[in-house]
């Protein structure tokens, strides 16, 4: 499978990370989104008229939605990551999209000079982080170590992790969110985990 990739975008990292977790080999094609605007080029728009990253290609099949990519990779490699029978999965994937529109946006504004209202985006993200911390804190007390009730981690963990792990780039902190910090470490220690710039690998000197 070929992944058209931008190294700094959480949505692209989610697919790279999940492919590594389930052992799916990917061929990465870097797209110079910043500062090159390559995603607005005719070549790229021919591949994905939405002009968004990532894009996953397998023969004639093209995926342009990063969450759909996670589901597709899970179905192909390890369906335990994709509990489709549980409605909570819809809620958590929606939460990840809300994080993209708030935390992810604040990060793009603050770090890469994208247009938008960083303070408003950050305020929304702050509310979401508080709510996820609350759910995690009660979840831990009920013996649930992942965001979904399942004993196995799910694509929902990956989908929210890639934003929360980069929250400092958006001017947010996990200092007062201990349950989130413990869950972040749990994801980082998952077998096959890979980092991206700004996300620390489980041990100081281990990469890829």
């Amino acid at each position, binding site marked *: 499978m070929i992944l058209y990739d931008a190294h700094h975008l959480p949505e692209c990292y989610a697919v790279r990370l999940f492919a590594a977790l389930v052992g799916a080999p990917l061929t990465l094609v*870097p797209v110079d989104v910043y500062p090159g605007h390559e995603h607005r080029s005719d070549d790229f728009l021919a591949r994905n008229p939405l002009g968004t990253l990532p894009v996953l290609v397998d023969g004639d099949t093209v995926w342009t939605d990063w969450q759909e990519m996670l589901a597709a990779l899970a179905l192909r490699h390890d369906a335990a990551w994709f509990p489709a029978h549980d409605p909570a999965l819809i809620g958590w994937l929606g939460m990840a999209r809300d994080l993209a529109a708030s935390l992810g946006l604040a990060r793009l504004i603050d770090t890469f*000079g994208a247009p938008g209202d960083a303070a408003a985006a950050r305020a929304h993200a702050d509310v979401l982080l508080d709510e996820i911390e609350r759910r995690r804190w009660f979840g831990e007390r009920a013996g649930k170590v992942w965001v979904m009730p399942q004993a196995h981690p799910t694509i929902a963990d990956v989908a929210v992790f890639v934003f929360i792990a980069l929250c400092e780039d958006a001017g947010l902190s996990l200092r007062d969110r201990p349950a989130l910090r413990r869950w972040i470490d749990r994801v980082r220690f998952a077998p096959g985990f890979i980092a991206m*710039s700004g996300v620390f690998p489980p041990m100081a000197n281990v990469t890829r």
Partner: protein
Amino acid sequence: MARFARTIAHTPGCPKKRNRAAAKTRWTLRRGGLATAAMTAIDPIVWNDWHPVAARCTLDPARAHTTVLLNQPLTIAIDGAGTITARRDDGGALHQDERYGLVWVCLGTPDRPVLVIAEADEPDRPAVVVGAVAVRAAGPRVIENFLDLGHLGYVHAGYLGDDPHTRVLPYSVAALPQGGIIATGCRMYQPQASPAATEGFDVEYVYKVERALITCLYKSNPLHRDRFDVIYLFVQPVTETTSVAHPLLLCLPDGTTPQGLRAFQQTIFLQDKPILENQRPARLPLADGADTPIAADKSSVAYRRWLSAIGLTWGVIPAPAKAARAA
């Protein structure tokens, strides 16, 4: 040079009215002058120097770019013909230039041009703007991190260093005749020194700091090991504790595309970002012994001493006794 700049900044203009047209012109200048006087808190060394504020390639005619330089909000616009105009949001005066694909602004009275980079004129070195990255750290902290050989094997493990090759061998540091410092004879084993490297090798480095917020390194190119790639880091001082890093690559052709070079350098810089943002105190302490230096930190010690000697106050915690002696 630094003392000269300070004299200019502390001498407010005293315009005398002669005729209406001249008075109007002077009014503009005077507004700039008054704003300067009101900004006496801003270090004249940075106030009277040139700083990058945007890259031409990221400017969009449909939408002006907003940024902040030395606490002053700026708007940078480009029109359909490619003409770039930088303005202070408070209407104050500024000086504008364009070099190396970047827009440069001086808010005070420039006493020298934008830094001249000889390598930028070498025909086989295309200048590649990497893409600005904002970082919640003081400008001098960003420069010091760039000079630090000791972190390569840890923060950039797998790329610019690797366990167990983390030892920093002795190197020399000297003063540059025009001001600033140069570190030579730095060597580091690097598994992936650049996108073109196909194997690890002992990379030779030279570091220079030519201005308070400009640094560069020369490192062996994996294909032309007798010539050097040049990487500049220009730091735009936003507030005393926030900055925008503008890296510029002047690399020899080795088959790497500009896209590949950019992705590699962004990956490296974004690895430094969380380290920089968690350093305390936020401003770089210049007092000897404020941090505990080891031999590997020789260039950092030299940088801090040079900043002390020129009397920089922006983004640093000055060393009281030393600053008095240097002045």
